[in-house]
């Protein structure tokens, strides 16, 4: 896998967007729709907290500049409503951008969507398998939509059914597939026509851990064979273990873009210690902030989070500081900075499921 630290050059960018922006015209269809995970009563997603409700609706995606090179696995990491699906929708011609430009495989997706679609493979967030067809027919007809002859499409379908371990399901209707199998079939279908770029929108959402791991393996293998992948996720571990580079998104904007390691290095500390104790967490944070090596100490719902420099060896000193201030420490966890730390540092909020 080629990892491009500084982004793809002009020539080898398979995806390239400039100042891409989308403002939806109205409320989502059917009024009551809210993205899964949107909390009732919480602030409307897509709008920074405290935004004036009388202002025109915020952009779902704003000022998006992306360059993804051939052979990359590129990730968009962000919470519900960050604009991940909107970004994929624009790149795959289903959502018309309000302004800005987007090129896929050298084709302008707004000016020539029909040509761009030739280069695109998509696994959408929802199951869009053709319910009137069997598993095998789903693959065959997809191949034929992309210009394969019936014979070619049949041969390729059978090969992919084998590779994706779906052969024994070939003749069943797609409604009977479990979530994991349906997802595998969606991935198989999306690469039937050998797209230049494979778009995966939250490919492992709702899958059990084992199925998730096997799908990760599949994505890695595809990539090893040269498939460029753009995927979205809100799982930290997924972004960390799969993506060569990733962009952290929130409220439609990219907040940071780098390799997972590069992002973690950007955190102001090398050790993150979470301290839980009885008593006032704010006071504990103030006390801990005075210890040597501490960059920052903050009360969070999970305890006081302390960013430190100088390695895990300085943790005992932290404990001493807590004890001196009269706190009874009940739990301490020590970790290296994770993407979660990066995310919290960037957005001031948590990205837990």
């Amino acid at each position, binding site marked *: 896998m080629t990892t491009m630290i500084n982004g793809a050059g002009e020539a080898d960018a398979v995806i390239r967007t400039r100042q891409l922006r989308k403002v*939806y*015209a109205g409320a989502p269809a*059917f009024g009551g729709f809210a993205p899964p995970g949107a909390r009732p009563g919480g602030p409307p997603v897509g709008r920074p907290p405290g935004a004036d409700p009388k202002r025109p609706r915020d952009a779902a995606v704003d000022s998006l500049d992306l360059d993804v090179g051939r052979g990359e696995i590129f990730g968009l990491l962000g919470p519900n409503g960050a604009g991940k699906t909107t970004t994929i*929708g624009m790149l*795959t*011609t*289903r*959502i*018309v951008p309000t302004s800005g430009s987007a090129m896929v*495989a050298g084709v302008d997706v707004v000016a*020539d*969507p*029909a*040509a761009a*679609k*030739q*280069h*695109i493979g*998509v696994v*959408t967030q*929802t199951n*869009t*398998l*053709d*319910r*009137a*067809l069997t598993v095998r*027919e789903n693959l065959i*007809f*997809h191949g*034929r*939509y*992309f*210009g394969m002859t019936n014979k070619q499409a049949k041969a390729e379908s059978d*090969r*992919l059914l*084998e*590779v994706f371990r779906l052969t024994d399901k070939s003749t069943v209707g797609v409604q009977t597939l479990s979530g994991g199998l349906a997802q595998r079939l969606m991935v198989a*279908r999306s*690469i039937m*026509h*050998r*797209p*230049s770029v494979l778009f995966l929108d939250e490919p492992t959402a709702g899958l059990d851990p084992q199925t998730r791991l096997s799908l990760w393996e*599949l994505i890695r*293998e*595809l990539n090893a*064979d*040269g*498939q460029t992948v753009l995927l979205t996720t809100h799982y930290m571990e997924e972004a960390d273990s799969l993506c060569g580079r990733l962009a952290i998104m929130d409220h439609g904007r990219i907040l940071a873009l780098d390799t997972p390691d590069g992002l973690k290095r950007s955190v102001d500390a090398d050790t993150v210690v979470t301290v839980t104790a009885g008593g006032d967490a704010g006071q504990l944070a103030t006390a801990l902030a005075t210890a040597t090596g501490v960059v920052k100490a903050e009360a969070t719902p999970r305890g006081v989070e302390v960013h430190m420099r100088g390695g895990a060896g300085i943790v005992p000193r932290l404990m001493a500081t807590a004890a001196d201030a009269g706190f009874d420490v009940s739990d301490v966890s020590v970790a290296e900075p994770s993407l979660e730390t990066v995310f919290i540092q960037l957005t001031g909020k948590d990205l837990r499921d």
Partner: protein
Amino acid sequence: MAAITITAPPTGPTQATAKAAFLALLARDLTVLRKEFKMFLARTVMQPLLLMFVFTYVFPKIGQGVGGGAGAARFSTLLVGGVIASTMIFQGIQAVALPLVQDFGFTREIEDRVLAPLPVSAIALEKVVAGGVQALVAGLLVFPMGLFIPATAIDLHINYPLLAAVMILGAFMSASLGLFVGTRVEPRQVPLIFGLLVIPMTFLGAVYYPWQSLEPLRWLQILVLANPLVYLSEGMRSSLTTGVPHMAWPVVLLVLAGAGALLLRVGVAGFRRRVLS
């Protein structure tokens, strides 16, 4: 898994790609139709079968024949064309509108076909072509009923070229109507399609009577001119019968083509609005 070899994408002239995609979409719809042919038959045959059976067999037999005696034969003759016409319109809505309403409403499976390498408007057009074929087949299925069911002899004088033109344009118009309706209606409004559209269209569509016979009710005669089924029924009668009064065929063909084109245009725009945001 070195078996998944990624080669260069198939880049060809876009025009040829789009044409291949269009034909493949059509092949998909015909495959589905073949698989569900029993269902297609059930939803298609029942209504014309009962209409023909009750009006052209039961009524004359029990002495309730519309017009009585020779009138019954005349009624049976004019009814064949009307029943074919209403069957075609009904099929256009069944075959195009209902699946689309479902698709836009919850399943979203259409998204897969929207990603096929052809313009979105061509995808909508494909729906109309596939629906048109079904409307045509549905209409043709009524002919044998007209031959075997009526208790009285029916008197058909078929003008084949005109019949072909009327049925093809009628099928096109029916499927375009289906596209238009399918892109406008929400899933919970489906029952309204029948109550507020199909039933009024059928009863006021010159199915059971020639349009000219509405003469005594001038206002109604003019009002129903807005109903495209009137022209299809009249066209069918003008190509199937000689003794029954009917509209001039050029008017029929012109209106069917015009209404079809208009509905197609509005339907394609609606389709684009529904699949692109």
